[in-house]
């Protein structure tokens, strides 16, 4: 199973431009229309579970608003040959 990712979006910076939403390869981001940022935009938010922590959203984000995390997969015991 692939590693799961997690993103945190700084709502003080996000301007709801939707570039992360458009470029996310697994479509797990969307604008949260129930929320407004201090600047008056609907912020992007993680809405699905399938995030892989691939970092594409942070690469396109013009506001550097996205922090990306990825699961650490515990290393399995080496198989003996």
């Amino acid at each position, binding site marked *: 199973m692939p590693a*799961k*990712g*997690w993103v945190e979006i*700084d709502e*003080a*910076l996000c*301007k*709801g*431009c*939707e*570039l992360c939403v*458009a*470029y996310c390869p697994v479509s*797990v981001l*969307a*604008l*949260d*229309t*129930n929320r407004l940022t201090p*600047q008056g*935009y609907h912020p992007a*938010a*993680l*809405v*699905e*579970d399938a*995030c892989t*922590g691939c*970092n*594409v959203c*942070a*690469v*396109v*984000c*013009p*506001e*550097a*608003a*996205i*922090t*990306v*995390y*990825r*699961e*650490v*997969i*515990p290393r399995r015991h080496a198989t003996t040959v």
Partner: protein
Amino acid sequence: MTVSAPSKPRRKLKLVYQKPEALTDKATHYCPGCTHGVAHRLVAEVIDEMGIRERAIGIAPVGCAVLAYDYFELDGVEAAHGRAPAMATGIKRVLPDSVVFTYQGDGDLASIGMAEIMHAAARGERITVIFINNAIYGMTGGQMAPTTLPQQVTTSSPRGRDVVTQGYPIRMAEILATLDGVAYSVRRSMHDPANIRKAKKAIRLAFEAQVRGLGFAMVELLSTCPTNWRMSPIEAMHWVRDHMVPAYPLGDYKVDAALKKLRV
């Protein structure tokens, strides 16, 4: 849409990406989706990775990026319109150990500042120039720039740029590559994640050129102006891909031999 919060992974998480230290916490004044923010972030990431923040001095232009010194967590000055290369020349000559970069738009660099950029390059000043080309004057309301494409509609070319009376776009990366003082002159684009990554490598090499004393270095970055192009941010990205990249071919126009060997 209704948003149901997904569950945070239970296993231990490692940090993959966070905002670079060379950017301040201040929210930018740029319009939503403007790639100025991407360019700022790439420059900041490169400065962090090279560990040159204490030596770096940024020079802001006149134009949308006039407040760039507020967003970089490093020393910065603001130059008169188009005169950033002249100011960079002075700073670099007085403080030769500093790492000096200018951040200029197309109105600033390719129009009023054409003389300064050409002569700074011809003198081979050891400075780094980040050139943001979005084919329009952003701050003043979307007028035609020297880089505006033929037939492109702007507020001062409402029937499209007519090349018979208004001339042709200027390709700065190619022009500067003809000068002997230039160590690095390339064009990159910021219209999708792959190209943004390539743009970052080019910015890194432009700073390496200065740190290694090779000469003048410039990276031209094709950028968007969603507001003045009257497009959504994603439509603007596609417009760069479909219209700007064919008119402004991406590529390396001059790369010093010492830089070609570098793996960044």
